[in-house]
């Protein structure tokens, strides 16, 4: 490597990257400092390489930490975006125990990050937007005053516009809501149907907090009588009613006044759900439904037919006189003449339920009318910065999902650095993910087959909060709750699972069991895993502990 800075830097870096013996002991402080001091002589590419390489260092004391941070300070304002962002990542990672330092670093780099969002190169703009989104997960107010920068330009490609709309939704506050809504309203009539639908969905999300203004806009959009817009608006109404039950009355009025029906299957399903769920508030509901039932022979989508069945039964329960006849026709058609097996089965289920009696049907068919987790009222939690530092300044945010560190296919040149990296950092962040849900039977089978790999007393008792809150809190850190015993039974058990870096982790939380030692006062967690990865278990337990501690602090 002839011109990678000076000769000595090249030699050192080459040695460090390829010699496994150097990896065996950690980076020493003086090594680190010498690299940092020479950074001013390097050009920008070498600087960002050095900064990425230096992510592996762990400072031994606060003095060391602040020494390093003050030396690197000037690079936070570098003219090159990649150096600034790499320095920011290093700051956030090194100072993970000092949130004030992290917040200060984020504040100082907010201006350069915003500048990349307005860069001439579209790809750079996209990268800047994705990283701004990540930062906003922890500091939503940082970019609040600059919301105008995120208005979409006319000629920007759709991927940039989608991201900008997502950011605009999160930036809304009392002062700028009308301007932002006006802007989003003008995107709803865009030529591209995907963009129009995304804009309408964005208005729907804002509507969960600012219902009246958004409802006015959405009602106005229905008047345009354009298929894709009408369908998107009805789907937004369905989501709005689910998350924000106080807007049900207004939504029902609008749906009643709307004469058009959507033409695509998503829109039809949404309309049918609304009619079935809130049929008592929409006076013309049975007649609209009759229209669908009569046109059943020409209906192609089986999802729509199943939704129609469920909605008709729900409507029958609240308005029997009007619905009885058409329900009969519907069931007759679906059982006798329908070719799709799923629809026929659903129809048979409805018929047999109704044979049992109205009360039985009511118990099975009616469900919650709005989102049980009440996430809107509690607001969006600000995530701790450590949740996303591992993927900051990597390809993760740009491709829309967290990329796991590469384990399988690594070329020889990269092999020493990446595999050594994994052993070198026992306290590297573990990223959890939900993946596909496990069924009860699968969980039970796996639980009985595997052996306990790790058992630990967590040191904190079961949080005295409602089970729903515990479930929601665990969900936030991507741990899925399978089952738990009701509130005050002793012993109290819960079964949870999650996935991380290619392994599946199953765990049981136990309190108050006579046979398990130490479980009277605090929770005991038993972990089973397939395949085995001790590192992931440690990460999982630490995340679990922090969640429980947070909940305990909140509830006490």
């Amino acid at each position, binding site marked *: *490597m002839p011109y990678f800075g000076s000769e000595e830097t090249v030699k050192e870096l080459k040695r460090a990257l390829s010699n496994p013996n150097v990896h065996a002991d950690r980076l020493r402080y003086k090594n680190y400092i010498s690299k940092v001091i020479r950074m001013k002589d390097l050009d920008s590419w070498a600087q960002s390489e050095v900064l990425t390489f230096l992510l592996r260092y762990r400072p031994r004391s606060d003095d060391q930490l602040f020494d390093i941070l003050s030396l690197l300070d000037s690079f936070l304002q570098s003219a090159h975006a990649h150096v600034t962002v790499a320095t920011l990542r290093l700051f956030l990672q090194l100072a993970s125990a000092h949130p004030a330092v992290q917040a200060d670093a984020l504040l100082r780099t907010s201006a350069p990050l915003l500048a990349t969002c307005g860069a001439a190169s579209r790809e750079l703009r996209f990268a800047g937007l994705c990283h701004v989104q990540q930062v906003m997960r922890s500091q939503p107010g940082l970019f609040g005053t600059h919301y105008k920068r995120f208005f979409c330009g006319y000629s920007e490609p759709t991927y940039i516009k989608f991201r900008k709309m997502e950011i605009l939704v999160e930036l809304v506050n009392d002062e700028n809501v009308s301007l932002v809504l006006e802007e989003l309203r003008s995107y709803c009539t865009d030529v591209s149907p995907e963009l129009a639908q995304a804009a309408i969905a964005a208005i729907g999300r804002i509507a969960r907090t600012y219902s009246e203004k958004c409802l006015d806009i959405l009602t106005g959009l229905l008047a345009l009588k354009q298929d894709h817009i009408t369908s998107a608006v009805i789907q937004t109404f369905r989501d709005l009613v689910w998350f924000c039950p106080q807007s049900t009355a207004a939504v029902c009025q609008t749906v009643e006044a709307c004469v058009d029906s959507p033409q695509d299957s998503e829109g039809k399903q949404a309309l049918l759900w609304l009619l079935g769920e809130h049929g008592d508030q929409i006076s013309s509901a049975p007649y609209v439904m009759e229209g669908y039932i009569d046109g059943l022979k020409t209906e192609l989508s089986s999802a729509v037919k199943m939704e129609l069945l469920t909605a008709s039964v729900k409507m029958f329960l609240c308005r029997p006189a009007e619905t009885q006849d058409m329900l009969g026709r519907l069931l007759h058609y679906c059982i006798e003449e329908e070719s799709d097996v799923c629809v026929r089965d659903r129809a048979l289920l409805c018929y047999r339920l109704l044979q049992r009696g109205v009360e039985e049907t009511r118990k099975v068919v009616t469900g919650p009318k709005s989102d049980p987790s009440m996430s809107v009222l509690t607001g969006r939690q600000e995530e701790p910065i450590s949740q996303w530092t591992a993927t900051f300044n990597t390809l993760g945010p740009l491709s829309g999902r967290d990329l796991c560190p590469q384990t399988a296919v690594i070329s020889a040149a990269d092999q020493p650095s990446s595999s050594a990296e994994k052993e070198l950092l026992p306290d590297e962040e573990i990223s959890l993910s939900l993946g596909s849900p496990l069924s009860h039977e699968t969980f039970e089978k796996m639980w009985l087959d595997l052996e306990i790999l790790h058992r630990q007393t967590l040191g904190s008792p079961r949080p005295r909060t409602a089970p729903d809150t515990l479930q929601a809190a665990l969900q936030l850190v991507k741990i899925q709750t399978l089952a738990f015993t009701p509130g005050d039974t002793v012993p109290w058990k819960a079964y949870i699972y999650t996935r991380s870096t290619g392994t599946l982790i199953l765990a049981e939380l136990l309190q108050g069991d006579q046979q398990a030692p130490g479980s009277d006062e605090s929770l005991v967690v038993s972990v089973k895993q397939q395949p085995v990865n001790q590192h992931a278990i440690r990460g999982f337990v630490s995340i679990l502990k922090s969640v429980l501690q947070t909940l305990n602090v909140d509830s006490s």
Partner: protein
Amino acid sequence: MISQIFILSTKGDHLIYKDYNIIMKPFRGEESKDSINGFYEMVTALSGDQPPVVMVNSGFLGELMSGLHFIHARQGGLYWVASTKTNPSPFTIIEFLNRLAALTKDYCGSLSEKSVRMNFALIYELLDEMVDFGYIQTTSTDILKNFIQTEAVSSKPFSLFDLSNVGLFGAETQQSKVAPSVAASRPIMSSRGEQGGKNEIFVDVIERLSVVIGSKGVLMKADIQGEIRIKCFLPTCSEMRIGLNEELSIGKSQLKGYSSAVRVDECRFHQAVKLDEFDTFRILKVCPSQGEQTVMQYQLCDELPCAPPFQLFPSVEKDYVNRSVNLSMVLIFLKLRCDLPPKSTALNVSITVPVPKGSTSMSQELSSPDQTAELQPKNKALLWEIPRFPGGAQLSALFKVDVPGLSSASLLEVGPVSMSFELPKQTCTGLQIRFLRLSPTQTGLSQRWVRYVTHSDSYTIRI
């Protein structure tokens, strides 16, 4: 870090391919073609542009290249792609690809499929020197020019007869010399070439204007992003001093004096710029290397010193021609006023007005023969083009659009009007270059050219 670098044309032709995997794989030729084709299919599968990071994940290709990410940038109508197996910083790779495209443009004169095809040897040589084992070494022209041997082949010879911007008559052209607009787009000479070509240096002040005007003519958002770019054809580096307006003030201050001071909100400078005289005299000192570089970037939000260049007075009505036959027209009357000072003009002004869905045809009344307008049913819009728009002038046009099945809500679909234009010889912030001095080490005459231009990034007017 980087596994492969390749350049594709819009049709998927492999123009350049360079592999940095050092594992000796048999049948490497086949694999490389597969990965390129896989990438091309993913990128062109859907209409419209794809986000820069693409991961090839499907079927056979997925097993072959699990974990391979492609990062691409589109420049000059070509795909510039880097693939990687690790998880590097996206900013680094994207800036590297942009810089590679800029260097290619410097060395070859212009950036197009033709120039890349003709100069592939030069580009391979550049890639050899720039990236080593997948790690980026250097992208600075000064260092690279010591190692690049190949001469550039340019697609058309530079000719003084290409007079697109030169005025032939008038006192001003005799006093101030004007060079044709293609003068700056020739290849930079390698150090071993003959000393043909003049010693010239071009300084461009380029601003991008992004404006949203609300429905009653109220300015809702105004944003200027500006750059000072230097394109240097001097064979040796000498120090250059650029003097900006002395009253340039940076940052939002509460005190605003009576003078129409030039203000920017913030600015960033290239690494090589020395700022010791910037605070007092607003002078930048830099040793420009050959080729193009951006010396300063600045931006100004929300408080523009000048009025937005265009104001639109629209009126949209329905016109029922024949009630019994349900045929109706939408009348769009647009009055466009240019608020620039009388001596300046706007070039290539094009106005796009969305029209209701289902519009079939259009008739127009335009005020002069060089303007054109056409209806584009695919984009659901009408496009009005004005090649030259003098300052202070007002142009109007009447469009009658046939919309069968017109409903009362169709008028709402005549949506926000977008404009694109170019304002030569002016900057909206008022930033000017007072002087440009080269330290006198040049043998022979060296010429300095300064150019100001403002483009519209996104100019939207709501109706």
